């Protein structure tokens, strides 16, 4: 595994790492895993969880950590705790662990406000820097954001971020707008979310020439840190120095103020990482290790994080109010009822559905007990995943405002600067994580949720995080590459299979493509895929087959309309999914026809138990 973007972290320990306990302090639950060296390789052996205790009445995050570890103690028979202390290093084969590490998104994660001069240039660069460091961006202020000066000041006053990142201007350019923004921030006297008496951390990563003025205006009012410009010239982003500063300040200031974090930092053998930053490390590592383009998603109760690595370029976004419990009602508000209803394979009246969604919002820890409730949650998750990817596409873009060289061949192509980097046809792998995907009763349910939400084009492999341990492995990879890799391959990553989806549309039942699959044992399966077909071909994990698809003349599989394509495809716990439902995927507009189509597809892939 490769190290993450922040500088490599050295653990304080020098003894060999054979037993590791790792926790992720989430907004609702703290999840602990035990990793042990078995023979020559590391394996994840036990898991425990407990409610997170960052807020009243406990207000000490370490209580939840100790409770989760106590559950591991019970299950494994290993003594890890000595009162409120984690025993390190191991004293004997059944006592202690060699290191304790943790990630955290508790207490709402790291909430940042960013500023720039031009909204879709330095504003977006600042946003990307903050998101990449694992933050939730609560607002982007820019000189041209359309808000009047007093509105900006009011906004800064009312928001209580954990940190502000200021950017704006290229080095050597005009300083006026950046200084103006500094004046607004100074006038607003922003106060941090935690700790009424301490100064708000503020990173300035804008025009170098404005540093003296910014220092003069904000030096007394905030804990100001100056760093390199994130956009030194228009054509280039330089996000790493600002991201590193965010990480440093997160540990030095923000976490020190959050309840119990001082203790947590002392307990841990390596710096605490924000959960999304740790998951980002894993996603980047997968892309690098396998030389693939990846989209990763972590769908939680409150937020959905999307990560992508295309041609080596990493991007992360967080959709702060798209989630499956706390934010479930917001998915309904943003997607609209018809978009959710289109995935529900039965009839339900609007009032009942709305009330059920609100009841889940106010009692977020409940679980679907009946099949129709499960199907409704799966329908909502498709929309949450879809909306979060749309959001990601809008931010994972090439730099805007950059002059492009155009040749005569570009004349007819009105391509603007700032085009999204997400090319679904070049996407090799989708990785899903988070409760609804990791804990779906059948793995095929996770696969179809992601296929329906993302509509992968051509040939795309899919996988899920087995029991939600990517954050733990992300932080582990910063201190022990081998342990993280071993566990990732053996216990974390569950390959679901591959989806083959021709691009184009046609009438239901019409021929879409002919295919020939050659299995590893030499067996050959020939068939025809019609429009409206969804077919599952068994191909087990670690098996590879060869597929040749001959699309009809208006259909494309990536090589051009009507051009045949031969590809190696990987199996998985679900298999090979042949998706003839067309791209863009179109569902029948008529309610009864749509319900019939959904029932047909769901039954074709064995999505739910019979009767569902």
């Amino acid at each position, binding site marked *: 595994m490769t190290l993450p973007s922040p500088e490599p972290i050295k653990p304080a320990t020098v003894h060999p790492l054979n037993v590791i306990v790792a926790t992720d302090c989430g907004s609702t639950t703290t999840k602990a895993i035990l990793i042990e060296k078995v023979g020559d390789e590391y394996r994840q052996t036990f898991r425990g969880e407990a409610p997170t205790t960052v*807020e009243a009445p406990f207000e000490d995050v370490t209580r939840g950590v100790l409770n989760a570890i106590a559950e591991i103690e019970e299950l494994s028979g290993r003594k890890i705790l000595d009162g409120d202390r984690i025993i390190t290093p191991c004293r004997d084969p059944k006592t202690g662990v060699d290191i304790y590490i943790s990630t955290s998104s508790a207490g709402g994660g790291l909430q940042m406000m960013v500023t720039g001069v031009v909204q879709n240039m330095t504003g977006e660069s600042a946003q990307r820097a903050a998101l990449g460091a694992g933050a939730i961006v609560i607002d982007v202020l820019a000189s041209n954001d359309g808000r009047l000066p*007093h509105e900006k000041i009011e906004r800064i006053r009312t928001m209580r971020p954990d940190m502000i990142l200021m950017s704006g201007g290229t080095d050597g350019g005009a300083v006026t707008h950046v200084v103006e923004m500094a004046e607004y921030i100074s006038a607003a006297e922003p106060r941090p979310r935690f700790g009424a008496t301490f100064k708000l951390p503020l990173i300035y990563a804008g025009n170098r020439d404005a540093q003296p003025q910014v220092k003069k205006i904000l030096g007394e009012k905030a804990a100001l840190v100056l760093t390199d410009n994130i956009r030194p010239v228009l054509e280039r982003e330089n996000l790493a120095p600002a991201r590193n500063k965010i990480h440093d300040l997160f540990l030095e200031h923000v976490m020190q103020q959050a309840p119990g974090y001082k203790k947590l930092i002392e307990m841990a053998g390596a710096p605490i990482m924000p959960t999304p930053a740790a998951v980002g490390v894993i996603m980047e590592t997968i892309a690098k290790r396998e030389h693939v383009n990846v989209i990763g998603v972590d769908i939680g109760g409150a937020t959905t994080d999307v990560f992508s690595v295309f041609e080596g370029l990493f991007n992360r976004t967080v959709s702060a109010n798209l989630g499956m419990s706390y934010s479930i*009602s917001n998915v309904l508000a943003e997607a609209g009822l018809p978009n959710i209803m289109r995935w529900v394979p039965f009839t339900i009246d609007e009032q009942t559905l709305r*009330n059920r969604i*609100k*009841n889940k919002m106010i009692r977020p820890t409940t679980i*679907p007990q009946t099949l129709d409730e*499960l199907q409704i949650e799966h329908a909502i998750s498709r929309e949450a995943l879809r909306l979060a990817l749309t959001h990601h596409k809008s931010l994972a873009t090439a730099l805007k405002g950059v002059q492009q060289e155009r040749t005569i061949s570009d004349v007819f192509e009105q391509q603007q600067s700032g085009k999204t980097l997400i090319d679904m046809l070049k996407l090799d792998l989708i990785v899903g994580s988070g409760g609804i995907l990791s804990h779906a009763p059948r793995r095929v349910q996770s696969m179809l949720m992601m296929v329906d939400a993302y509509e992968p084009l051509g040939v795309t492999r899919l996988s899920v995080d087995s029991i939600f341990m990517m954050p733990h492995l992300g932080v582990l990879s910063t201190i022990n590459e081998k342990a993280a890799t071993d566990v990732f391959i053996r216990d974390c990553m569950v390959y679901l299979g591959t989806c083959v989806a021709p691009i184009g549309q046609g009438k239901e039942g019409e021929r879409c493509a002919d295919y020939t699959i050659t299995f590893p044992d030499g067996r050959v399966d020939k068939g025809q895929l019609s429009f409206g077909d969804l077919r599952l071909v068994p191909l087990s994990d670690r098996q590879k087959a060869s597929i040749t698809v001959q699309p009809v003349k208006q259909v494309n599989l990536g090589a051009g309309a009507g051009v045949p394509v031969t590809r190696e495809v990987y199996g998985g716990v679900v298999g090979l999914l042949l998706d003839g439902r067309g791209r863009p995927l179109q569902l029948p507009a008529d309610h009864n026809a749509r319900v019939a189509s959904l029932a047909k597809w769901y039954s074709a892939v064995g999505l739910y138990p019979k009767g569902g």
Partner: protein
Amino acid sequence: MAHSYTPGLTVTEQALIRRRRMLSLPGKVLVSAGEKVRANQAVARAELPGKVYPLNLANQLGVAPDEIQEYLIKKAGDTVQKEEILAENKPLVKWFKTEVRSPITGVVESVSTVTGQVLLRDPPRVLELLGYVDGTIVEVIPQQGVVVETDCSLVQGIFGIGGETRGEIVIGVASPEEVLSPGHFTAEMKEKVVVGGSFISSDALARAKEIGVAGVVIGGIHDKDLRALLGYDLGVAITGTEQVGFTLILTEGFGPIPMARKTFTLLSAHAGQPASISGATQIRAGVIRPEIIVPKGRASGGHNVATELQREGIRIGDQVRVIRDPLFGKIGEVASLPSDLQKIPTESEVRVMEVRFADGSRTMIPRANIELIEGA
């Protein structure tokens, strides 16, 4: 150890509770420890700095930013009246004179020679923090606030909108199953807390607003009626600042659901007494639930630690509420607590509990879908 049940809502006749009252910015605490306070009494005060108005003087005078000092009549820190001259140029021909006048009464906060901007600030606004409940001050946090303790009856709701208020409790219906309709509201209910039964419709909500009730406590409402009341679709359950004319508290959830008999009986027993209520809800870790507090009117000890009704876990015989379909809203008691995981119709393997209902029937329900009805 992890509890595999949802901590429930407290409904109790007898509780010693503490409420932390904090200013949103440093100010002055007006009471001292041991002092008795009333719900509507100010316990702390702060001055909220006024709004800021930026004014680009350089642009208005048509001069370079670093020259504006020469034209200023008022300097940083000076007070200024509305329409008073802030800066002016001194042209040779009087006709070309430009005067920049202050749009507000306040102070000149700062003058920037880089941007040419002057920031003006409104006078500070006084914020008073009320006691919220009748009780005793048990802790003073200097410059920030106080902790008030009260001996009371307490009912927690599941969801609410609107902030803190108080009023006399009036029972609007005859039974917890009855729907609170427009006909139940009378002019005498003005500024009172009206307790209903299972459901309130949109026309009854409109009637409540028209009369000017302080609050409505009800079993359930339809989501579409909430949307109509608020004017938008509520995405995340973080509430307390809505201004719909009254505070609304749901005790059970969305849809028509009879109010738990225990809740209805307790509130009925306090009809005619003043109550402090809050609709503020935050559903996330460290949840905040809406509440109805009926102070007992006698002084609390102040020395005893006010335990906030913490408990160890779930026991056979405990009263529980089912909080997910298909039996949503039903109330029963714990009959058994099998420790093995059980497969439910979704094919998930989960921990369950057996619940016995009033008609004697028993059903296995996932523990995650059960809520304790807490309180003695």
